């Protein structure tokens, strides 16, 4: 029973990782850029979630607005940060991205203050008996449901719509896609919008679980999401999702049974190193 409960906690954590890692792996697939500043958008989402909920009393509105606003900020980050340096080696974009991420922590501190902020009355805190005595707060259930719905929606978009098909074509062969009439820029903006909106959703969910947002809350996701997309095979959406859930579960059991040896982050990276030694291209990449 305890094992099931710890497994569930791991899947909740994994769902959050999945929402963050998705945007990162999409951007990598499309542009071959490691978008570290993605974690700043996660933090921004968290802040907007708390601030809008406190101002309006509606978490739903806050989630929706956070996703839309951060989605546009993501698009702007592509236009301002990456577009001018697309022709340069990817390393340049990576360094720019890291710089923006570090600067953003201080910008959050200047705008929102050095202290954490919290929900005035935290929503979704009631306990629900999921099955045979396993109690979860509504917020935790919401995390998993939201991740599931968003990812299902993404899957539909990718398979059933023109945008999705064009995106997949651009990932496989950008030049061929372009010569078939695909507008690559539209696709890039769309991917930044969707990926950033998902990161915002993750930020709102984390703010709900911890009742706390702070300027440095993106620090851990900034590198852990990188580990996840490497594990999943860079650019692979399915790989990133499975790696997210795996990592959530491994950390969950690890903090209980190996916590005195290695902390959560070290566990994640020990696992990453182990996997890369056996499968240098990630778990889910063929060849």
């Amino acid at each position: 029973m305890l094992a099931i409960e710890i497994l569930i906690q791991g899947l909740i954590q994994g769902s959050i990782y999945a929402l963050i890692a998705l945007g990162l792996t999409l951007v990598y697939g499309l542009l071959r850029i490691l978008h570290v500043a993605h974690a700043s958008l996660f933090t921004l989402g968290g802040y907007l979630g708390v601030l809008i909920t406190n101002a309006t009393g509606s978490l739903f509105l806050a989630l929706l607005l956070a996703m839309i606003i951060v989605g546009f900020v993501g698009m702007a980050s592509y236009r301002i940060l990456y577009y001018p340096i697309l022709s340069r080696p990817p390393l340049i974009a990576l360094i720019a991205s890291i710089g923006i991420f570090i600067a953003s922590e201080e910008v959050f501190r200047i705008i929102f203050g050095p202290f954490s902020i919290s929900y005035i009355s935290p929503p979704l805190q009631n306990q629900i008996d999921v099955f045979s005595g396993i109690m979860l707060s509504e917020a935790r259930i919401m995390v998993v449901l939201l991740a599931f719905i968003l990812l299902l929606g993404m899957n539909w978009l990718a398979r059933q719509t023109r945008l999705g098909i064009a995106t997949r074509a651009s990932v496989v062969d950008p030049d061929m896609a372009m010569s078939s009439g695909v507008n690559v820029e539209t696709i890039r903006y769309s991917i930044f919008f969707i990926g950033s909106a998902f990161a915002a959703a993750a930020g709102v969910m984390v703010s709900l679980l911890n009742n706390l947002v702070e300027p440095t809350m993106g620090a851990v996701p900034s590198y852990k999401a990188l580990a996840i997309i490497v594990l999943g095979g860079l650019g692979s959406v399915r790989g990133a999702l499975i790696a997210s859930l795996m990592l959530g579960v491994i950390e969950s059991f690890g903090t209980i049974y190996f916590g005195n040896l290695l902390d959560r982050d070290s566990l994640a990276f020990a696992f990453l190193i182990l996997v890369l030694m056996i499968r240098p291209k990630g778990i889910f990449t063929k060849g």
Partner: protein
Amino acid sequence: MLKTLQASVMALLISLAASIGIANADTIKIGFNVPLTGFAAADGQSALHGAELAVEQVNANGGVNGDALELVVYDDQASPKESAPLAIKMITQDEVVAGVSGSYSGSTRAAATIFAENNVPYISAYAIHPDITRAGEYVFRTSFMGEVQGRAGAKLIGEMLGAKRVTMITLNNDFGISLANGFKEQTDNFGIEVISEYEYSIKDREFGAIVSKIKSDNPDAIYASGYFFTAGPLVSQLRAAGIDQPVIGQEGYDSQKFIEIAGPASEGVMITTSLDRDSSDPMTQAFIEGFSNKAGYPADMVAASAHTAILVLADALARSGSLDKASLRDAIAATDLKASTGQISFNALGEVKKDVQIQIVRDGNWHHHSVISDPDLLAPPSE
């Protein structure tokens, strides 16, 4: 071209420095390194407000033997690689008479070594690493060491609350580890059995797995080390999972922010700390009132500690009557002062001797629960 530019900039800087030097001829400079950016910026902000309040209070009462105190503030980002050069700058360039750390252990240790080497007094306001005072005889600490508070925690749980089966949740840094060491050192004396211990990193805010495990451990009490930004989420997640056993923390929780984050879950949480919110002492009351007026939010442990450290220095300056560093050092060592965090005196190593305050959350505020004044139990190491 570049050379002339450099020369003119230098000339400007020199004249600027000279004019500042003249303007401040009658002030006594105290160096203050504090994290104002980076992950510790929130604590740094509180510490700075507390230190500034102390300086304002001293100056409003005529200063030290007629001279005004001046705080020379530097942002050390809680990082040793920042604080070490800042310490050199404070000593050589600003020529401070003494330094105070409003920062964390890593940065304080690095600066303490440099102050000690240069025979300039240095007081750690709330950094807890044992090696800080071992840097030399010019280094003092006005807050409890982790071990001391850990021992007080064991007495609170084992003797005062009568809880015997205890789960420990330990923050995996120098603060958490030294608290855990002090706690474990006293478990036998107070009949405590540690039935499980979990460690977490300072970056963790999500404790789902540990909470699930503790539910099945079913302890009598939980001894959890942490800061308000880790303990807030931890306590709210423990209570949300239906775990209602007593949670005992330490001065790291000691902020209104903890109550804000954990909300109703914070009710009944007890901590070992050095600030008594319900103290009738006019000194402490003046601090609590002055701080919330100045900062716009309620006082916390970090602020009280920085406030205390500055007052200790001001008191020693007044008693030594000169700016000579050796006599100032001796005056600090001979301190016997009532400050916002209680009656302060030092042992041979420069560690503070004072009572431990137990505070409890009631109706959304920290309140007095009890005091532990047991000089043997609370004796800091003296070498």
